[in-house]
């Protein structure tokens, strides 16, 4: 697979700090993949994300977005056009009085033709399931709806990559589900590359890849099933094991033979039920 973002030994220290917030991060993100990033508060996740579209540029090392160096000021507009960002607080990201104006904000600034803006805005709002609300006032929407409008605003720019920094932190469970489903559909149906930062383990079980950050370094990088099976690592990093992984682990410790690492509730229940039933038929 083709890498769309490459970090090459990236170091970064905030101006007021002495300690490095990123200490030599090297990795590449594949086109069309869904990459979730976990780590405790202050682990460097947001700093990492902000390097992906040149909000921050490395003190040392470099970041390439589709081959463009983010430190090169000539490329910065191009980089930002390719990488859209969504942040935690939807109220800080919406600027217009009407939903569709808000979504049109970026393409207008990019000088897109009015006819095409119309098409992009409609398509983006449909993609996030907010087309019926296009004439509503953003401030009267629920948190999940606002966040989906913010995502539509990013999609209307037609970026290749979308980076979301804890987009569900301020939402209730229903709003969280809406946003998570929307983001997965962008990746699976539209082929967008997604980098998704979260504190909620259950939001990343379907990700292609999981990166765990700690003290500015990549502490683990692999498939969700492998990382979530590692209770020791998660505990050390102040993260939680999803209930499914924890249950499988404890049942195995009691002598049940469970193969595989199904993380979704349905798959996990299916595996346990099958094993219990086959044990019964044997005895």
């Amino acid at each position: 697979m083709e890498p769309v973002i490459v970090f090459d030994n990236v170091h970064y220290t905030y101006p007021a700090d002495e300690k490095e917030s990123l200490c030599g991060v090297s990795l590449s993100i594949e086109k069309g993949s869904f990459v979730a990033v976990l780590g405790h508060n202050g682990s460097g996740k947001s700093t990492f994300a902000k390097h992906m579209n040149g909000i921050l540029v490395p003190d040392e090392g470099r970041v390439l977005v589709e081959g463009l160096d983010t430190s090169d000021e000539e490329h910065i507009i191009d980089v930002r056009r390719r990488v859209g960002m969504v942040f935690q607080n939807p109220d800080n990201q919406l600027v217009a009085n009407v939903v569709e104006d808000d979504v049109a904000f970026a393409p207008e600034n990019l000088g897109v033709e009015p006819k095409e803006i119309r098409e992009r805005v409609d398509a983006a709002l449909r993609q996030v399931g907010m087309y019926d609300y296009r004439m509503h006032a953003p401030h009267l929407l629920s948190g999940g709806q606002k966040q989906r409008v913010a995502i539509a605003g990013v999609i209307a720019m037609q970026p290749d990559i979308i980076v979301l920094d804890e987009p569900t932190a301020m939402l209730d469970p229903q709003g969280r589900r809406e946003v998570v489903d929307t983001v997965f559909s962008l990746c699976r149906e539209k082929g967008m590359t997604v980098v998704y930062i979260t504190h909620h383990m259950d939001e990343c079980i379907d990700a292609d890849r999981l990166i765990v950050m700690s003290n500015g370094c990549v502490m683990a990088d692999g498939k969700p099933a492998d990382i979530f099976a590692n209770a020791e690592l998660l505990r050390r990093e102040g993260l939680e094991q999803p209930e499914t992984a924890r249950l499988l682990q404890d049942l195995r410790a009691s002598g049940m033979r469970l193969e595989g690492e199904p993380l979704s509730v349905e798959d996990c229940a299916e595996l346990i039920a099958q094993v219990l039933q086959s044990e019964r038929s044997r005895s």
Partner: protein
Amino acid sequence: MAEIITDKLCHVYSKDTPFEKTAIRDISLTIPQGQLAALIGHTGSGKSTFIQHLNALLQPTTGRVLLDGEDINRDKYARRDVKWKVGLVFQYPEYQLFEETVYRDIAFGPSNMKLSKDEIDERVREAAAFTGVDEALFERSPLELSGGQKRRIAIAGVIAMRPEVLILDEPTAGLDPAGRTQILDNIFRYREKSGATVLIVSHSMDDVARFAERIIVFDDGGIAMDGTPDEVFSRSQKLVEIGLNVPKAAELALALRRRNIPLPESVFTHEQLLDALLKAREGKAC
């Protein structure tokens, strides 16, 4: 002593305008002294409107709120005094820090209570200890600290008033799992030492399943369920219908029952689920 009673509490926003909206209707509840209760419900179900009545930030459209038997809205002095007895910590309280130093921010509440300087100092140190705020931070600006530290300072600011009732609106939102556990432990420690009544609004069913003595479920401005975690989570199906989550262990138990694995109704924590599955397994083996 700090028992809260709400008597047929109703609140209508923007009454007699085209935007009129009934946020809560006919809520009658008794929350006895020392209880640790969780309020759950989705956005717009009326939880926040309800808790803002408990220290007279909002006045009922109809109905009453009683603290230890007395109407908290009986006159303007009562309405002021109740704010010292019933401490309210809002969502994302770290955005409400405003003083120049951590110490002064925590001291703000008690400073308005006409206490002596020594008394204020004692309370600030006590509140900081409860919430795990290091005294070394006292002279720092709260605005330059991390999100988790700011949140603890904001909670300390309310605890410094030594409220008899402590109400927190989603105190763990946006924190990492370790931060969530820490904040909850701080709150429980205050409750244990002070005997305060504690109400926590939460979206995290897994947290609620672990700590609450009582769960009050709001739906559409009314109370849909009210009982012990056992009682509420044994009706997981109903919670799902209201559009709420259930703890992950309860969700797994529902999925296993659908696959004909016999599990008791009252399974909603990891330990209970593990235990029930091991029993189901033994039962089958012999």
